[in-house]
């Protein structure tokens, strides 16, 4: 039984994930499934920066927005093929990521957090005010759907296959990154930057790299979002959105890859299904976050790890857990 579980858990999960459009045809549900994928990618990208490397980002929605606008503008204003947008979005976001990562040379912890916060606010204002480019608060309409050969991914169901594929890709990137020399360097910086330097790790280089990778993934999520909704407006990239991503990471478990995915799915779906409760659902949401850090600081990821250990009868090879370096406070 346990061997069976160990062998097939990944395959089973993948099959289930890809089967969603078969299991339901409700466009609303499929749209939510797409959004869950998008937020899972965002949460994973934030986790690479904050969970693995210990660098705060309170302005992650900015990278998301940069990606969304890059790919939309290319398609709408320049008439470029959609897939070019999907390629350009992470690249442009990564450039901003590197720029934002550079202050890590001089700034630590919360001071860095402030810079990311300010960056988020600045980008939002740029989206709103650069009307000639972004169309301002009215937003950009007519963002085209991507096509594969003759198939146009213009339904939520068909688009979902793109979303889930990119999510799987992100998960693979996160795992490979984590279990590598680079990933160990990131974790070491999170755990203790002084000691990491003593091990010959150029911490600035790796911190900037984390910013770059994280921003690129968030930018990709942005492109995925823009072509799903077929419309972008600044309101999707306000600082409150950064806070949602942060919350998903916490509820999922800081540093946990499966936790990120489950956290993002949970916090995308649950508020939707509680819509009838109006604003009260967000009160509960806030309360849940507070209770989570007090009573279960390891988040959903912690539970997943335990269940997985139980089912597979193994100790997890490398639970990645913990928080931001102590000095951050």
């Amino acid at each position: 039984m346990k061997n069976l579980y160990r062998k097939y858990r990944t395959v089973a999960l993948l099959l289930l994930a890809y089967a969603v459009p078969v299991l339901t045809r409700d466009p609303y549900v499929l749209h939510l499934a797409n959004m869950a994928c998008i937020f899972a990618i965002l949460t994973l990208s934030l986790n690479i920066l904050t969970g693995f490397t210990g660098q705060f980002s309170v302005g992650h929605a900015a990278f998301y927005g940069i990606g969304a606008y890059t790919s939309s503008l290319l398609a709408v204003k320049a008439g470029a093929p959609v897939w070019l947008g999907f390629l350009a979005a992470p690249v442009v976001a990564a450039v901003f990521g590197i720029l934002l990562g550079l202050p890590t040379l001089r700034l630590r912890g919360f001071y860095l957090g402030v810079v990311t916060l300010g960056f988020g606010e600045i980008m939002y204002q740029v989206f709103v005010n650069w009307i000639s480019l972004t169309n301002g608060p009215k937003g950009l309409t007519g963002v085209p759907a991507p096509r594969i050969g003759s198939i146009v991914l213009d339904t939520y169901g068909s688009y979902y296959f793109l979303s889930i594929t990119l999510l799987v890709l992100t998960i693979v990137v996160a795992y490979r990154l984590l279990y590598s020399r680079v990933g160990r360097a990131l974790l070491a910086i999170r755990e203790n930057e002084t000691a990491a330097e003593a091990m010959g790790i150029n911490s600035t280089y790796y911190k900037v790299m984390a910013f770059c990778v994280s921003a690129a993934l968030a930018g990709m999520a942005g492109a995925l979002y823009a072509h799903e909704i077929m419309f972008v407006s600044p309101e999707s990239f306000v600082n409150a959105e950064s806070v949602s991503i942060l919350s998903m990471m916490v509820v999922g478990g800081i540093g946990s890859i499966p936790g990120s995915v489950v956290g993002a799915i949970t916090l995308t779906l649950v508020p939707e299904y509680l819509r009838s409760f109006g604003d009260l659902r967000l009160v509960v949401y806030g309360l849940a976050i507070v209770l989570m850090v007090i009573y279960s600081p390891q988040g959903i990821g912690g539970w997943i790890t335990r269940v997985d250990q139980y089912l597979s009868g193994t100790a997890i090879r490398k639970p990645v857990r913990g928080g931001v370096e102590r000095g951050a406070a």
Partner: protein
Amino acid sequence: MALLETQGLSISFGGVHAVQGVDLQVEKGEIFTIIGPNGAGKTTFFNLVTGYYKANSGRVIFKGDDITHLAPYHRTKKGIGRSFQVLMLFRDMTVLDNAMVGLHCRLKSNLAGALLRTSATVREEAEGREKVRQLLHFVGLDGKEHEMAKNLSYGQQKRLDIARALATDPEILLLDEPAAGLNTQDLASLTDMIQRIRDRGITVLLIEHKMDLVMSISDRIMVLNFGKKIAEGTPDEVRQNEAVIEAYLGKEE
């Protein structure tokens, strides 16, 4: 030529001269110990040699190269390894990974290699793990590879700290009070371990308070007081030095 040399190394914090004009020459293959009262500037001196503090004046020379202005990680690459007085392990990483991080600067795989899992990367990882396992065996942490560092006993954590520093493949290893807080048994194995490290051809620069340990294994000793060198020599010479007795060992009246 000395392996490690400092010339007139000085630093002050807010008017206090923490290290003042210290000249030191450590020869290849010796165990060299720095002693002195608490607050005499020993750890500050280590931090100057490893690059965590920038000297106000003076130079640090390693293998004939002036490294005074190199960043800490760069000095590690050049072959200066260190342990910490206050344990600075990567607490939420496994023992194996802690040591693997130590190997960081001797491995080559980069981001692309990691994401694509190239065969070179996979091979390098496997070889690295083998090397690290040997080091963990060397410090006596066999079978603990998959424990979280924070779950080790204090003595084991101290050993992991040394294993991690050894993984950086140093030519000189700086040990900052490795014996502090160890029980008698751990202390005996530490003494033995330091000698075995030297036998591997690694020069050892030690800060230590436990006088019996210091006197038994050091080739030479430097005594710091108030950031200044007040004596240097073999254990016997230092023990009989008037200034040392006055400042540190204590004088009979």
